[in-house]
């Protein structure tokens, strides 16, 4: 018979989650607000582009991915009040003006022959940066106090990886000449420069700082 009075630890031996995390409540809310802004801008752009791309498979993928990012925006929107931000619009802002410039440049291509540029902006620049920032946040935040954010980010990252793979394959399938390759690379470089200035989708510190600060001794 089971001894119901026999004590057990609150954490099973294999459960190594730790309490400390990199972000407090306010920092988390601020980052979530940036993420939500980015997701909104992205799903709006994907929706708008559907009518402008002639390639049927691309058209249908953009329509599908549009919803994925809208759902991400909704998840972040629901998380904000749980982080004490009741006026969710207040934090739904870009991290800086460079990020606004990034979206203006990313959404500039409209003509039917610019599908490569449209796809490159989303799948070779923005989504990889989103994956990086979300992964940094997911791995750095407290696995206990901020588990709701981790759960959200896990769902979202699953989508991001799948969408990135589909988008990258569409790009590869569309680049058939050195000229098209040049177009893709040139557009990517242009957008990456703006993203560099922005410091990532959540501004400087989007993926932390890997460098060690050395205090010089005299």
């Amino acid at each position, binding site marked *: 018979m089971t001894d119901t009075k026999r004590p057990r630890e609150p954490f099973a031996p294999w459960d190594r989650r730790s309490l400390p995390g990199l972000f407090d409540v306010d920092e988390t809310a601020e980052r979530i607000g940036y993420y939500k802004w980015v997701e*909104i801008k992205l*799903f*709006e*752009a*994907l*929706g*708008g*582009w*559907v*009518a*402008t*791309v*002639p*390639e*049927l498979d691309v*058209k*249908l*993928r*953009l*329509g*599908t991915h*549009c*919803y*994925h*990012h*809208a*759902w991400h*925006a*909704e998840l972040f*929107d629901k998380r904000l009040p749980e982080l004490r931000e009741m006026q969710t*619009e207040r934090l739904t802002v870009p991290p800086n003006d460079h990020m606004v410039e990034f979206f203006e440049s990313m*959404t*500039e*291509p*409209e003509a*039917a022959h610019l599908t490569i540029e449209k796809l490159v902006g989303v799948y070779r620049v923005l989504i990889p940066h989103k994956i990086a920032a979300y992964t940094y946040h997911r791995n750095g935040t407290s696995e206990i106090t901020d588990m709701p954010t981790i759960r959200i980010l896990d769902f979202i990252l699953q989508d991001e990886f799948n969408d990135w793979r589909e988008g990258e394959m569409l790009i590869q399938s569309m680049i058939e000449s050195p000229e098209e390759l040049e177009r893709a690379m040139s557009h990517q470089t242009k957008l990456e420069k703006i993203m560099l200035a922005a410091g990532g989708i959540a501004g400087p510190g989007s993926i932390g700082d890997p460098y060690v600060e050395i205090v010089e001794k005299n």
Partner: protein
Amino acid sequence: MRKIFPAEELARDSRFIRQSNEQRMGDPRGARIAGGNAGDALAKLTPGLPNGPDRARALMHGIFVGEIQALEGAGRTCWDFELGDEAPLALKLDMARQCWDEARHCEISVVLAEHMGTELGEYAENALLYEAACNPDPVLRLTGVNRALEGLAIDVFNTMKEFGNMAGDPVLEFCEDWMLADEVTHVKMGSDWLRRLTENDKDRLDKALEFQKVVDRLFSFNGFRGEEDDSPIQLTRRFRELAGFTDEEIDEIADMSRDARSEAIT
């Protein structure tokens, strides 16, 4: 990228052939869809009709291009309006969801079209549906697209579902039933947003309902969608009720169809 993307610039590959609605209705094969353009007798779409399978194939092609335009229209509603007073986030989220649904409907209907023996480009496309999705007022756009056109889609999908049942085609029946469920959701979105966004604006509500009537009238040619036994496309009361239509509103569409039919005869 511009706000409000014109219908004539919708991006298509070489298989698509664009025609005006008049040209498209002048296509003698169009009679197969409408069930009788120039004096032909109306008849409910059934596999037993001599031209029943041809009509069903033509209709499936029409569904496919309609789904593309519905996808494009919902996508543009995500982009065309500024977030906030112009379009609340929840409305845009609904439109993004509709994008996904319409993309799946494109996938379903292109496979069904092939299954039924037609192929992309066999029939022409007109851009009437997307044109309704270009209205600069989001309320009018949602009313015209989600209540009028998606409402028509409810009737069309239910008719096709019954056609599949009568033809002993479980694939067709299964797929149409799934798409029908989505369409009821889309029409309900339109009904809900119409009421929410015009709660304190009677003038805007009236304009939106008038726009819906204009769109409904456009798609009532020859009264092909109605409640009569020989209406090619049957008006579906039950699903429209689920989608937020009142009995009076459904009666009005039925009356409009009867009027269109009388006009066609005289």
